[in-house]
Protein backbone atom coordinates (compact mmCIF):
# COMPACT_ATOMS: atom_id res chain seq x y z
CA UNK A 1 0.00 0.00 0.00
CA UNK A 2 1.40 3.40 -0.91
CA UNK A 3 2.05 5.99 1.79
CA UNK A 4 -0.17 9.08 1.85
CA UNK A 5 1.44 12.28 0.64
CA UNK A 6 3.51 14.20 3.19
CA UNK A 7 1.67 17.40 2.24
CA UNK A 8 -1.35 17.78 0.00
CA UNK A 9 -2.81 21.29 -0.17
CA UNK A 10 -5.57 21.85 -2.72
CA UNK A 11 -6.67 25.32 -3.77
CA UNK A 12 -6.18 26.88 -0.36
CA UNK A 13 -7.07 30.54 -0.01
CA UNK A 14 -7.00 32.80 2.98
CA UNK A 15 -8.13 36.39 3.07
CA UNK A 16 -6.72 39.00 5.47
CA UNK A 17 -7.42 42.75 5.34
CA UNK A 18 -4.02 43.48 3.78
CA UNK A 19 -3.01 40.15 2.35
CA UNK A 20 -4.54 37.33 0.41
CA UNK A 21 -3.31 33.80 -0.13
CA UNK A 22 -4.79 32.57 -3.41
CA UNK A 23 -5.35 29.08 -4.82
CA UNK A 24 -2.27 27.48 -3.37
CA UNK A 25 -1.66 23.91 -4.53
CA UNK A 26 1.22 22.13 -2.92
CA UNK A 27 2.05 18.46 -2.63
CA UNK A 28 4.96 16.12 -2.25
CA UNK A 29 5.48 12.54 -1.20
CA UNK A 30 6.89 11.25 2.07
CA UNK A 31 10.65 11.01 2.16
CA UNK A 32 11.15 14.24 0.22
CA UNK A 33 12.16 17.80 1.10
CA UNK A 34 10.25 20.80 -0.18
CA UNK A 35 11.66 24.30 0.11
CA UNK A 36 9.37 27.33 -0.03
CA UNK A 37 11.10 30.43 -1.31
CA UNK A 38 9.60 33.87 -1.39
CA UNK A 39 10.20 37.47 -0.34
CA UNK A 40 8.92 38.86 2.97
CA UNK A 41 5.14 38.91 3.08
CA UNK A 42 4.79 36.43 0.22
CA UNK A 43 2.67 34.04 2.31
CA UNK A 44 5.20 31.36 3.28
CA UNK A 45 4.43 31.50 7.01
CA UNK A 46 0.69 31.55 6.35
CA UNK A 47 0.99 28.36 4.29
CA UNK A 48 3.07 26.66 6.97
CA UNK A 49 0.60 27.68 9.69
CA UNK A 50 -2.27 26.31 7.60
CA UNK A 51 -0.31 23.08 7.19
CA UNK A 52 0.12 22.95 10.99
CA UNK A 53 -3.60 23.51 11.57
CA UNK A 54 -2.92 26.77 13.40
CA UNK A 55 -4.88 28.76 10.81
CA UNK A 56 -7.95 27.54 8.96
CA UNK A 57 -8.08 28.40 5.26
CA UNK A 58 -11.21 30.13 3.93
CA UNK A 59 -11.32 27.74 0.97
CA UNK A 60 -9.49 24.57 0.06
CA UNK A 61 -8.33 21.44 1.80
CA UNK A 62 -5.10 20.49 3.51
CA UNK A 63 -3.93 16.98 4.25
CA UNK A 64 -0.77 16.28 6.18
CA UNK A 65 0.49 12.68 6.23
CA UNK A 66 -3.02 11.74 5.15
CA UNK A 67 -4.73 13.61 7.99
CA UNK A 68 -7.14 16.40 7.24
CA UNK A 69 -6.12 19.72 8.83
CA UNK A 70 -7.18 21.31 11.10
CA UNK A 71 -9.83 18.64 11.84
CA UNK A 72 -7.39 15.81 12.53
CA UNK A 73 -4.62 18.03 13.86
CA UNK A 74 -4.24 16.13 17.14
CA UNK A 75 -3.13 12.90 15.50
CA UNK A 76 -1.26 14.72 12.72
CA UNK A 77 0.72 16.91 15.13
CA UNK A 78 1.93 13.80 16.97
CA UNK A 79 3.93 13.13 13.80
CA UNK A 80 5.08 16.68 13.04
CA UNK A 81 7.98 18.66 14.44
CA UNK A 82 7.51 22.39 13.90
CA UNK A 83 10.16 25.07 14.27
CA UNK A 84 9.51 28.70 13.38
CA UNK A 85 11.78 31.69 13.47
CA UNK A 86 9.29 33.57 15.68
CA UNK A 87 8.65 30.61 17.98
CA UNK A 88 9.95 31.13 21.51
CA UNK A 89 10.65 28.84 24.45
CA UNK A 90 9.93 29.83 28.05
CA UNK A 91 12.68 32.28 28.96
CA UNK A 92 12.64 31.61 32.69
CA UNK A 93 13.02 27.86 32.20
CA UNK A 94 15.92 25.58 31.28
CA UNK A 95 16.31 23.35 28.23
CA UNK A 96 15.87 20.39 30.60
CA UNK A 97 12.44 21.74 31.63
CA UNK A 98 11.38 21.88 27.99
CA UNK A 99 12.82 18.43 27.28
CA UNK A 100 10.89 16.93 30.20
CA UNK A 101 7.73 18.64 29.03
CA UNK A 102 8.02 17.36 25.44
CA UNK A 103 9.03 13.92 26.69
CA UNK A 104 5.86 13.76 28.80
CA UNK A 105 3.79 14.35 25.64
CA UNK A 106 5.53 12.15 23.08
CA UNK A 107 6.04 8.40 23.52
CA UNK A 108 8.42 8.60 20.59
CA UNK A 109 10.86 10.87 22.48
CA UNK A 110 14.38 9.51 22.04
CA UNK A 111 16.50 10.29 25.12
CA UNK A 112 19.69 9.04 23.54
CA UNK A 113 19.22 11.15 20.43
CA UNK A 114 18.31 14.17 22.58
CA UNK A 115 21.57 13.81 24.50
CA UNK A 116 23.50 13.35 21.25
CA UNK A 117 21.95 16.57 19.93
CA UNK A 118 22.75 18.42 23.17
CA UNK A 119 26.38 17.43 22.73
CA UNK A 120 26.44 18.08 18.97
CA UNK A 121 24.83 21.50 19.38
CA UNK A 122 27.06 22.30 22.36
CA UNK A 123 24.06 23.09 24.58
CA UNK A 124 23.92 22.91 28.36
CA UNK A 125 20.54 21.54 29.35
CA UNK A 126 20.63 23.28 32.73
CA UNK A 127 20.97 26.69 31.06
CA UNK A 128 17.95 28.96 31.14
CA UNK A 129 16.60 30.08 27.78
CA UNK A 130 16.92 33.77 28.66
CA UNK A 131 20.71 33.46 28.86
CA UNK A 132 21.03 31.84 25.45
CA UNK A 133 22.07 33.41 22.14
CA UNK A 134 19.71 33.38 19.14
CA UNK A 135 21.64 30.50 17.59
CA UNK A 136 21.45 28.46 20.81
CA UNK A 137 17.70 29.09 21.04
CA UNK A 138 17.16 27.90 17.48
CA UNK A 139 19.26 24.80 18.17
CA UNK A 140 17.30 24.11 21.39
CA UNK A 141 14.00 24.41 19.51
CA UNK A 142 15.34 22.14 16.79
CA UNK A 143 16.44 19.59 19.40
CA UNK A 144 12.94 19.56 20.90
CA UNK A 145 11.43 18.97 17.46
CA UNK A 146 13.92 16.33 16.31
CA UNK A 147 14.23 14.21 19.45
CA UNK A 148 10.58 13.26 19.26
CA UNK A 149 11.39 11.57 15.94
CA UNK A 150 8.59 13.10 13.85
CA UNK A 151 7.71 11.81 10.38
CA UNK A 152 7.42 15.34 9.07
CA UNK A 153 9.47 18.41 9.95
CA UNK A 154 7.99 21.82 9.20
CA UNK A 155 10.46 24.68 9.47
CA UNK A 156 9.60 28.34 9.01
CA UNK A 157 12.80 30.28 8.26
CA UNK A 158 14.92 28.05 10.50
CA UNK A 159 18.23 29.61 9.50
CA UNK A 160 17.27 33.30 9.61
CA UNK A 161 19.68 35.33 11.69
CA UNK A 162 22.14 32.48 12.23
CA UNK A 163 25.86 32.78 11.67
CA UNK A 164 27.30 30.50 8.94
CA UNK A 165 28.63 27.85 11.35
CA UNK A 166 25.35 27.51 13.24
CA UNK A 167 23.45 27.55 9.93
CA UNK A 168 25.54 24.61 8.76
CA UNK A 169 24.91 22.72 12.00
CA UNK A 170 21.17 23.26 11.64
CA UNK A 171 21.12 22.21 7.97
CA UNK A 172 23.29 19.15 8.68
CA UNK A 173 20.91 18.05 11.40
CA UNK A 174 17.92 18.59 9.13
CA UNK A 175 19.58 16.28 6.62
CA UNK A 176 20.40 13.72 9.32
CA UNK A 177 16.73 13.62 10.20
CA UNK A 178 16.07 12.38 6.68
CA UNK A 179 18.08 9.21 7.10
CA UNK A 180 14.82 7.34 7.48
CA UNK A 181 13.51 7.53 3.95
CA UNK A 182 9.90 8.05 5.00
CA UNK A 183 10.76 11.23 6.90
CA UNK A 184 9.96 14.49 5.12
CA UNK A 185 10.71 18.19 5.48
CA UNK A 186 8.74 21.23 4.43
CA UNK A 187 10.63 24.43 5.05
CA UNK A 188 10.67 28.05 4.08
CA UNK A 189 13.72 30.21 3.65
CA UNK A 190 14.96 33.46 2.21
CA UNK A 191 18.25 31.76 1.64
CA UNK A 192 18.17 30.14 -1.79
CA UNK A 193 21.51 28.46 -1.07
CA UNK A 194 19.95 26.50 1.81
CA UNK A 195 17.00 25.53 -0.36
CA UNK A 196 19.23 24.53 -3.27
CA UNK A 197 21.38 22.47 -0.93
CA UNK A 198 18.75 20.24 0.64
CA UNK A 199 15.48 20.40 -1.31
CA UNK A 200 14.03 17.84 -3.68
CA UNK A 201 11.17 20.16 -4.59
CA UNK A 202 11.17 23.92 -4.75
CA UNK A 203 8.17 26.22 -4.66
CA UNK A 204 8.36 29.95 -5.35
CA UNK A 205 5.74 32.11 -3.69
CA UNK A 206 5.03 35.72 -4.46
CA UNK A 207 2.12 37.96 -3.49
CA UNK A 208 0.16 35.09 -1.92
CA UNK A 209 0.43 32.88 -5.01
CA UNK A 210 2.54 29.92 -5.96
CA UNK A 211 4.36 31.15 -9.03
CA UNK A 212 6.27 27.99 -9.73
CA UNK A 213 6.61 24.58 -8.08
CA UNK A 214 8.78 21.77 -9.46
CA UNK A 215 11.44 19.34 -8.49
CA UNK A 216 14.89 20.83 -8.14
CA UNK A 217 16.42 19.22 -11.23
CA UNK A 218 13.60 20.51 -13.44
CA UNK A 219 14.05 23.94 -11.94
CA UNK A 220 17.76 24.07 -12.49
CA UNK A 221 17.54 22.50 -15.96
CA UNK A 222 14.60 24.57 -17.09
CA UNK A 223 16.22 27.98 -16.84
CA UNK A 224 18.98 29.30 -19.10
CA UNK A 225 20.63 32.62 -19.84
CA UNK A 226 21.44 33.08 -23.52
CA UNK A 227 24.10 35.61 -24.48
CA UNK A 228 23.35 36.73 -28.00
CA UNK A 229 24.93 38.97 -30.58
CA UNK A 230 22.39 40.84 -32.66
CA UNK A 231 24.54 42.03 -35.56
CA UNK A 232 21.69 42.83 -37.96
CA UNK A 233 19.42 44.31 -35.30
CA UNK A 234 16.80 41.57 -35.76
CA UNK A 235 13.70 41.27 -33.62
CA UNK A 236 13.72 38.60 -30.91
CA UNK A 237 11.43 35.64 -31.56
CA UNK A 238 8.07 36.00 -29.82
CA UNK A 239 8.34 33.26 -27.18
CA UNK A 240 6.37 32.94 -23.95
CA UNK A 241 9.48 31.34 -22.42
CA UNK A 242 11.37 34.65 -22.46
CA UNK A 243 11.36 36.00 -18.91
CA UNK A 244 13.88 38.81 -19.12
CA UNK A 245 15.75 40.71 -21.83
CA UNK A 246 18.75 42.97 -21.30
CA UNK A 247 20.10 44.80 -24.35
CA UNK A 248 23.31 46.76 -24.68
CA UNK A 249 24.15 47.78 -28.22
CA UNK A 250 24.53 44.65 -30.30
CA UNK A 251 24.80 42.44 -27.24
CA UNK A 252 21.67 40.91 -25.86
CA UNK A 253 21.10 38.71 -22.78
CA UNK A 254 17.88 36.72 -22.68
CA UNK A 255 16.66 34.65 -19.71
CA UNK A 256 14.34 31.82 -20.65
CA UNK A 257 12.24 29.31 -18.76
CA UNK A 258 11.32 25.73 -19.83
CA UNK A 259 14.47 25.60 -21.92
CA UNK A 260 15.16 22.94 -24.51
CA UNK A 261 17.33 22.83 -27.61
CA UNK A 262 14.51 24.01 -29.88
CA UNK A 263 14.58 27.39 -28.16
CA UNK A 264 18.18 28.12 -29.15
CA UNK A 265 17.30 27.05 -32.69
CA UNK A 266 14.51 29.64 -32.76
CA UNK A 267 16.95 32.39 -31.82
CA UNK A 268 19.41 31.20 -34.46
CA UNK A 269 16.62 31.01 -37.07
CA UNK A 270 15.64 34.57 -36.17
CA UNK A 271 19.13 35.68 -37.22
CA UNK A 272 20.71 36.03 -33.78
CA UNK A 273 24.07 34.56 -32.99
CA UNK A 274 24.30 32.64 -29.71
CA UNK A 275 27.66 33.24 -28.09
CA UNK A 276 27.03 31.49 -24.77
CA UNK A 277 24.35 29.52 -22.92
CA UNK A 278 24.57 29.57 -19.10
CA UNK A 279 22.76 27.80 -16.31
CA UNK A 280 21.26 30.01 -13.59
CA UNK A 281 21.69 29.76 -9.85
CA UNK A 282 18.53 29.21 -7.81
CA UNK A 283 18.76 32.82 -6.63
CA UNK A 284 18.79 34.06 -10.21
CA UNK A 285 15.89 31.75 -11.08
CA UNK A 286 13.99 33.05 -8.06
CA UNK A 287 14.63 36.67 -9.02
CA UNK A 288 13.62 35.92 -12.60
CA UNK A 289 10.39 34.39 -11.37
CA UNK A 290 9.62 37.24 -9.00
CA UNK A 291 10.26 39.89 -11.62
CA UNK A 292 8.09 38.03 -14.11
CA UNK A 293 5.30 37.62 -11.50
CA UNK A 294 5.58 41.29 -10.56
CA UNK A 295 5.25 42.34 -14.20
CA UNK A 296 2.19 40.09 -14.64
CA UNK A 297 0.59 41.49 -11.50
CA UNK A 298 1.25 45.07 -12.61
CA UNK A 299 -0.26 44.27 -16.02
CA UNK A 300 -3.35 42.77 -14.33
CA UNK A 301 -3.65 45.82 -12.08
CA UNK A 302 -3.58 48.27 -14.99
CA UNK A 303 -6.20 46.33 -17.00
Amino acid sequence: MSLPLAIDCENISKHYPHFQLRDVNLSFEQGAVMGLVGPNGAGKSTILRIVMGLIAPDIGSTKVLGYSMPKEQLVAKRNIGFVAEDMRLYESETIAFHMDFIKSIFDSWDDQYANTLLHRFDLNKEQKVKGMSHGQRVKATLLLALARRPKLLVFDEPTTGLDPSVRKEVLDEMMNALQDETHSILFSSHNTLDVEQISDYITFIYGGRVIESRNKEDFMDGWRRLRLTNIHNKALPNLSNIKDVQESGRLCTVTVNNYDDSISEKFTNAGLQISHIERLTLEEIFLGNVMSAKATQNKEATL
Partner: protein
Amino acid sequence: MSHSIIPLLMKKDFLMTQKMIFIFCVVTLACIVIISMLFGRIPNVVFFNLGITLLIAPAGTCGIVLLMKTIVLEKQKSTQLFIMSLPVTVKEFTLSKLLLNLPVFTAFWLVITGVAFYFAFGLGLFPYGTVPFITMIFLGILVAYIGILSAALIYQSYGITVIASLCFEMGTPAYLWIIAYLEPINRHVYDPHMVWNPTAIIIVATQFFVACTMLLITWHLQTQKRDFI
Protein backbone atom coordinates in the same frame (compact mmCIF):
# COMPACT_ATOMS: atom_id res chain seq x y z
CA MET B 1 -0.64 8.11 23.76
CA SER B 2 -4.35 8.37 24.23
CA HIS B 3 -4.49 10.36 27.46
CA SER B 4 -5.42 14.02 27.45
CA ILE B 5 -2.71 16.62 27.21
CA ILE B 6 -4.62 19.02 29.51
CA PRO B 7 -3.01 17.80 32.78
CA LEU B 8 0.42 18.10 31.16
CA LEU B 9 -0.26 21.69 30.10
CA MET B 10 -1.57 22.51 33.57
CA LYS B 11 1.44 20.88 35.20
CA LYS B 12 3.77 22.89 32.97
CA ASP B 13 2.02 26.16 33.88
CA PHE B 14 1.94 25.22 37.57
CA LEU B 15 5.65 24.38 37.65
CA MET B 16 6.38 27.74 36.03
CA THR B 17 4.29 29.70 38.52
CA GLN B 18 4.56 27.68 41.73
CA LYS B 19 7.11 30.00 43.35
CA MET B 20 4.92 33.01 42.65
CA ILE B 21 1.82 31.23 44.00
CA PHE B 22 3.76 30.22 47.11
CA ILE B 23 4.88 33.82 47.71
CA PHE B 24 1.28 35.05 47.45
CA CYS B 25 0.19 32.30 49.87
CA VAL B 26 2.78 33.57 52.37
CA VAL B 27 1.68 37.19 51.86
CA THR B 28 -1.99 36.22 52.33
CA LEU B 29 -1.14 34.33 55.52
CA ALA B 30 0.86 37.34 56.76
CA CYS B 31 -2.15 39.56 56.08
CA ILE B 32 -4.40 37.18 58.04
CA VAL B 33 -1.94 37.33 60.96
CA ILE B 34 -1.92 41.15 60.80
CA ILE B 35 -5.73 41.19 60.76
CA SER B 36 -5.83 38.88 63.79
CA MET B 37 -3.46 41.17 65.64
CA LEU B 38 -5.57 44.23 64.81
CA PHE B 39 -8.82 42.63 65.92
CA GLY B 40 -10.31 44.44 68.93
CA ARG B 41 -7.67 47.16 68.85
CA ILE B 42 -9.28 49.43 66.28
CA PRO B 43 -12.94 50.39 65.65
CA ASN B 44 -14.98 47.60 64.03
CA VAL B 45 -15.83 49.45 60.79
CA VAL B 46 -12.21 50.53 60.29
CA PHE B 47 -11.08 46.99 61.07
CA PHE B 48 -13.47 45.47 58.54
CA ASN B 49 -12.50 47.86 55.73
CA LEU B 50 -8.79 47.47 56.43
CA GLY B 51 -9.22 43.70 56.79
CA ILE B 52 -11.02 43.34 53.47
CA THR B 53 -8.33 45.39 51.73
CA LEU B 54 -5.55 43.29 53.27
CA LEU B 55 -7.30 40.07 52.25
CA ILE B 56 -8.32 41.03 48.74
CA ALA B 57 -5.04 42.69 47.71
CA PRO B 58 -2.77 39.61 47.68
CA ALA B 59 -5.50 37.23 46.46
CA GLY B 60 -6.58 39.54 43.64
CA THR B 61 -3.01 40.35 42.66
CA CYS B 62 -2.12 36.65 42.60
CA GLY B 63 -5.12 35.91 40.36
CA ILE B 64 -4.28 38.68 37.91
CA VAL B 65 -0.52 38.03 37.84
CA LEU B 66 -1.20 34.33 37.27
CA LEU B 67 -3.50 34.91 34.33
CA MET B 68 -1.12 37.49 32.87
CA LYS B 69 1.77 35.05 33.10
CA THR B 70 -0.03 31.94 31.90
CA ILE B 71 -2.43 33.41 29.33
CA VAL B 72 -1.49 36.90 28.14
CA LEU B 73 2.30 36.42 28.11
CA GLU B 74 1.89 33.11 26.31
CA LYS B 75 0.71 35.04 23.28
CA GLN B 76 2.84 38.16 23.76
CA LYS B 77 6.08 36.20 24.05
CA SER B 78 5.28 33.78 21.19
CA THR B 79 5.49 30.70 23.42
CA GLN B 80 1.92 29.96 22.31
CA LEU B 81 3.28 29.05 18.88
CA PHE B 82 5.50 26.46 20.58
CA ILE B 83 2.56 25.05 22.56
CA MET B 84 0.15 25.02 19.63
CA SER B 85 2.69 23.17 17.47
CA LEU B 86 2.20 20.25 19.88
CA PRO B 87 -0.84 17.95 19.74
CA VAL B 88 -3.02 20.58 21.39
CA THR B 89 -6.35 22.00 20.20
CA VAL B 90 -7.76 25.42 21.08
CA LYS B 91 -10.28 23.68 23.35
CA GLU B 92 -7.55 21.87 25.27
CA PHE B 93 -5.46 25.03 25.50
CA THR B 94 -8.45 26.99 26.84
CA LEU B 95 -9.48 24.27 29.29
CA SER B 96 -5.95 23.93 30.65
CA LYS B 97 -5.81 27.68 31.31
CA LEU B 98 -9.25 27.73 32.95
CA LEU B 99 -8.54 24.65 35.06
CA LEU B 100 -5.35 26.14 36.44
CA ASN B 101 -6.30 29.78 36.92
CA LEU B 102 -9.83 29.35 38.21
CA PRO B 103 -9.08 26.82 41.00
CA VAL B 104 -6.00 28.74 42.18
CA PHE B 105 -7.95 31.98 42.50
CA THR B 106 -10.98 30.15 43.92
CA ALA B 107 -8.77 28.63 46.61
CA PHE B 108 -7.53 32.10 47.59
CA TRP B 109 -11.10 33.39 47.37
CA LEU B 110 -12.43 30.63 49.64
CA VAL B 111 -9.72 31.35 52.21
CA ILE B 112 -10.30 35.11 52.29
CA THR B 113 -14.08 34.65 52.28
CA GLY B 114 -13.81 32.16 55.14
CA VAL B 115 -11.54 34.48 57.13
CA ALA B 116 -13.84 37.45 56.50
CA PHE B 117 -16.92 35.48 57.58
CA TYR B 118 -15.08 34.19 60.65
CA PHE B 119 -14.15 37.68 61.80
CA ALA B 120 -17.46 39.24 60.79
CA PHE B 121 -19.80 36.67 62.24
CA GLY B 122 -17.77 34.08 64.16
CA LEU B 123 -16.28 36.75 66.37
CA GLY B 124 -19.44 38.86 66.36
CA LEU B 125 -18.13 41.86 64.46
CA PHE B 126 -21.44 42.28 62.61
CA PRO B 127 -24.99 41.06 63.17
CA TYR B 128 -26.17 38.10 61.08
CA GLY B 129 -28.37 40.45 59.06
CA THR B 130 -25.20 41.46 57.19
CA VAL B 131 -24.58 37.91 55.89
CA PRO B 132 -26.41 38.41 52.54
CA PHE B 133 -24.56 41.67 51.85
CA ILE B 134 -21.12 40.27 52.75
CA THR B 135 -21.94 37.25 50.56
CA MET B 136 -22.69 39.63 47.68
CA ILE B 137 -19.37 41.45 48.26
CA PHE B 138 -17.35 38.27 48.01
CA LEU B 139 -19.36 36.87 45.13
CA GLY B 140 -18.78 40.22 43.41
CA ILE B 141 -15.03 39.67 43.74
CA LEU B 142 -15.35 36.22 42.14
CA VAL B 143 -17.51 37.58 39.30
CA ALA B 144 -14.99 40.38 38.68
CA TYR B 145 -12.13 37.87 38.53
CA ILE B 146 -14.02 35.64 36.08
CA GLY B 147 -14.69 38.70 33.91
CA ILE B 148 -10.98 39.57 33.83
CA LEU B 149 -10.06 35.92 33.18
CA SER B 150 -12.54 35.78 30.29
CA ALA B 151 -11.14 38.96 28.72
CA ALA B 152 -7.59 37.61 29.09
CA LEU B 153 -8.50 34.31 27.44
CA ILE B 154 -10.50 35.79 24.58
CA TYR B 155 -8.10 38.59 23.66
CA GLN B 156 -4.75 37.56 25.20
CA SER B 157 -3.87 41.24 25.11
CA TYR B 158 -2.17 43.32 27.80
CA GLY B 159 -4.22 46.39 26.96
CA ILE B 160 -7.61 44.71 26.98
CA THR B 161 -6.84 42.71 30.13
CA VAL B 162 -5.74 45.87 31.94
CA ILE B 163 -8.86 47.72 30.76
CA ALA B 164 -11.04 44.77 31.84
CA SER B 165 -9.31 44.79 35.25
CA LEU B 166 -9.94 48.52 35.63
CA CYS B 167 -13.59 48.20 34.59
CA PHE B 168 -14.28 45.31 36.96
CA GLU B 169 -12.26 46.80 39.83
CA MET B 170 -14.12 50.09 39.56
CA GLY B 171 -17.44 48.59 38.55
CA THR B 172 -17.65 46.08 41.40
CA PRO B 173 -17.52 48.64 44.29
CA ALA B 174 -19.94 50.87 42.37
CA TYR B 175 -22.38 48.02 41.96
CA LEU B 176 -21.97 47.02 45.62
CA TRP B 177 -22.73 50.59 46.68
CA ILE B 178 -25.93 50.46 44.64
CA ILE B 179 -26.89 47.18 46.29
CA ALA B 180 -26.09 48.59 49.73
CA TYR B 181 -28.60 51.36 49.15
CA LEU B 182 -31.34 49.05 47.88
CA GLU B 183 -34.08 49.25 50.46
CA PRO B 184 -34.84 45.49 50.69
CA ILE B 185 -31.14 44.83 51.39
CA ASN B 186 -30.40 47.91 53.47
CA ARG B 187 -33.42 47.35 55.74
CA HIS B 188 -32.11 44.04 57.13
CA VAL B 189 -28.39 44.81 57.45
CA TYR B 190 -28.59 45.39 61.19
CA ASP B 191 -31.07 42.57 61.89
CA PRO B 192 -29.86 39.99 64.41
CA HIS B 193 -30.91 37.22 61.98
CA MET B 194 -30.03 36.85 58.33
CA VAL B 195 -32.87 37.59 55.95
CA TRP B 196 -32.74 36.03 52.47
CA ASN B 197 -35.58 37.98 50.92
CA PRO B 198 -36.40 37.68 47.16
CA THR B 199 -34.19 40.70 46.32
CA ALA B 200 -31.17 39.20 48.07
CA ILE B 201 -31.76 35.82 46.43
CA ILE B 202 -32.18 37.38 42.97
CA ILE B 203 -28.95 39.38 43.37
CA VAL B 204 -26.92 36.35 44.46
CA ALA B 205 -28.50 34.19 41.74
CA THR B 206 -27.70 36.89 39.17
CA GLN B 207 -24.08 36.94 40.32
CA PHE B 208 -23.85 33.17 39.81
CA PHE B 209 -25.61 33.49 36.47
CA VAL B 210 -23.25 36.25 35.27
CA ALA B 211 -20.20 34.24 36.33
CA CYS B 212 -21.42 31.09 34.55
CA THR B 213 -22.53 33.04 31.46
CA MET B 214 -19.13 34.73 31.13
CA LEU B 215 -17.42 31.33 31.30
CA LEU B 216 -19.80 29.86 28.73
CA ILE B 217 -19.37 32.83 26.37
CA THR B 218 -15.60 32.55 26.73
CA TRP B 219 -15.74 28.84 25.92
CA HIS B 220 -18.01 29.44 22.95
CA LEU B 221 -15.83 32.22 21.51
CA GLN B 222 -12.66 30.22 22.02
CA THR B 223 -14.06 27.17 20.26
CA GLN B 224 -15.22 29.33 17.33
CA LYS B 225 -11.74 30.73 16.70
CA ARG B 226 -10.44 29.66 13.30
CA ASP B 227 -7.01 31.20 13.66
CA PHE B 228 -5.23 30.80 16.94
CA ILE B 229 -1.83 32.33 16.33
